[in-house]
């Protein structure tokens, strides 16, 4: 039996070698793209275009502009001198925010009971940068406001120095954006690679008509499935190791926990995804169908990895659904081991869930595929 499985594995690798574009793209292209995307988007938001209309033109108003510049969040557009210019910029999406300093700004600050105000206009057509811009502007006005109060009351300039709470970000002291985003991006890439390879395994042979040949040979369906699975798992593990070492070297994503544990759990996770891919593979008549199904299933799984929205904030039904998504548990494991240095004592609920899902999907997949092959 082992010899026959080995023969099947060899056959699969010959396929991969003959059509080397596909494995090359998925492995090296994928890793390279992960690097590019990580490099482009794992950074604080800077350079957001901001328009300033300074009607006051005083030392105080210039201080506001300088403080905004110093946050690093903004790229200041040229100063404008009417509302039309701001409207023009907002309509065309050229700016994320505009700030208007009214003519009485410095006078209000100077008077004992003055109430200076600043007008801010945000471009809601891009809500994520708009929120970032607002956050930076609020920070600047808070600091300036404190100084005004101190001067008005004639207090010691350092009075409020102790009033900022001390913030500690555990597991990510340097506040590296890459630590947030790259694990999910890596997870997405890995899942698609494995699903795609698994999904093509039978649909491809069926479409090209070679499945018949395979089935009339003296292999049992179990042997065929194992023979098809081993190359996919090997490719997946290699892909994971490759991408992990890349994000580790390029983005300094640490491996605080046990690497061996991570690789063992990766093997388990890949087997669950493999089982899913096999089901897709036998229900798809063509590779085209297989790919569309992979995209639908893969993207829906990605929604539960915490990339853009935390699962805890989703509707109740979605949260329950997340529990049966393997990628959800896998990402908790990856973040746990890489960033928190967690061990099995912490991760066991996720591992148990993954095992349970794997058992269900695996059994179903095995029976389903066998029925479809026989």
């Amino acid at each position, binding site marked *: 039996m082992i010899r026959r499985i080995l023969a099947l594995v060899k056959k699969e690798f010959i396929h991969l070698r003959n059509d080397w574009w596909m494995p090359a793209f998925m492995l090296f292209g994928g890793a390279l793209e992960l690097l*590019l995307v990580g490099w482009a988007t794992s950074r604080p938001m800077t350079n957001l275009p901001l328009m300033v209309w300074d009607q006051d033109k005083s030392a105080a108003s210039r201080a506001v502009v300088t403080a905004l510049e110093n946050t690093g969040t903004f790229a200041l557009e040229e100063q404008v001198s009417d509302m039309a210019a701001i409207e023009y910029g907002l309509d065309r999406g050229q700016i994320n925010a505009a700030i208007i300093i009214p003519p009485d700004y410095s006078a209000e600050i100077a008077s004992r009971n003055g109430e200076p105000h600043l007008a801010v206009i*945000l471009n809601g057509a891009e809500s994520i940068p708009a929120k970032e811009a607002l956050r930076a502007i609020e920070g600047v006005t808070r600091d300036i406001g404190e100084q005004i109060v101190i001067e008005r009351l004639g207090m010691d300039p350092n009075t409020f120095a102790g009033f900022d709470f001390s913030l500690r970000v555990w597991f990510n002291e340097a506040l590296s954006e890459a630590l947030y985003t790259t694990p999910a991006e890596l997870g997405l890439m890995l899942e698609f690679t494995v699903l795609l390879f698994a999904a093509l395994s039978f649909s491809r042979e069926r479409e090209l008509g070679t499945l018949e040949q395979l089935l009339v040979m003296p292999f049992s369906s179990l042997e065929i499935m194992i023979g098809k699975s081993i190359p996919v798992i090997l490719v997946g593990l290699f892909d994971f190791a490759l991408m992990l070492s890349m994000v580790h070297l390029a983005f300094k994503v640490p491996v605080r926990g046990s690497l061996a544990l991570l690789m063992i759990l990766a093997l388990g996770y890949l087997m669950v995804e493999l089982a899913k891919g096999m089901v897709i593979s036998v229900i798809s008549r063509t590779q085209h169908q297989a790919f569309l199904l992979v995209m639908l299933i893969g993207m829906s799984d990605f929604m539960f990895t915490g990339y853009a929205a935390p699962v805890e904030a989703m*509707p109740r039904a979605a949260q329950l659904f997340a529990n049966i998504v393997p990628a959800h548990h896998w990402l908790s494991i990856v973040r746990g081991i890489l960033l928190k240095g967690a061990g099995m004592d912490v991760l066991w609920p996720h591992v148990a869930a993954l095992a349970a899902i794997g058992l269900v999907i695996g059994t179903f997949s095995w029976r389903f595929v066998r029925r479809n092959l026989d």
Partner: protein
Amino acid sequence: MSLRHIWAITRKEFQHIFRDRSTLFLVLVTPTALLLLMAYALTVDIQNVPIAILDYDRSSLSRAFVQQITAGEDLDLYAQVNTLSDIEELIMHGEIKAALILSPTFSKDLLALNGMPLQVIIDGTEPESGSFAVDHIAWRAEEFINGAVASQIQAMGMQVDSLQPIDLRIRTWFNPSLKPRNDLIPGLISMVLGFPALSVALTLAHEREHGTLEQLMATPIGRADLLIGKMIPYIVVGLVNVIMIPLIAMAWFHIPFNGSFPLFFGLSAIFLFSILSIGIIVGVFMPTQAAALALSFLVIFFPGFFLTGIFFPIAAMPEIMRLESLGLPGTHYAFITRGVFLPGNGLDVLWPYAVMMAGLGFAFTAVAALFFKKKLG
């Protein structure tokens, strides 16, 4: 170029699509289904973030502070703990996203205006809820401190109205509540409309893999006609989605559609042409469907999701990536979809983006036709 030849190929391709019902269904439904899914999952309003509090002070002031912090829907008091190791345990298990530690001198220091001995710990592995918790803790802490300090200063005999004298008057255009849903859903249209491009890449590779490309080449149909004829059915498929998606966005998600629908439809057709031309290039160069699949994933989907400015603004990307973004049709189209939905932009604003997309489309198609000839000739 012959219209008759193009039409012949188009008809043949339509027959392929309609012959297999399950493919037809998947091709038609995938973009809209995916958009619905992302709309639900990616655009949630964060609330009820679980936090823990370690109060060493246990004074009435510190209790009032805790009350204020957890008064809203945004932060949930998961546990009052007694030791730092409890916090470690809870964060390690992911039960809480943030923790507050009030030092024993909390009320004393605050009343003496010495400062606020408060430490905030957040779970740095959680991208969104962590920074959400920090912002909201900061807002509420500031409110509380301003109140406490102001009354303390007044007690010292000084007159003060407010500790935040600058009044920030904020107006948000186009999306007054800054709901991410309102701009992410239009933006993501550019990603899901990449699916027809994949289909066209696959059909070309399919013909090559099955050897029917040879037969097509033996007919008097020109190379460009063949490519254009292959694109048309998938542009039609895409346009069906262009009609469905705004309807769902408006009816189901209540996203305003302030622009002109005919304009949106026309610009979407241009986008489909340009993204399909990338699919055509993939189909021309790749020998098998599997290879075409892998390459379309790399050049159409992954960048279409991450690099077109839907989630991360292009202005903040490194210079080179900004240039690459400009070479993606999706970048221009994502601007157009947001512009048509929210500000209701007209052609006077959107024409440069349309020109860019059309230019990219023609350039890619030309490259494809050129190499198609070489590879077969």
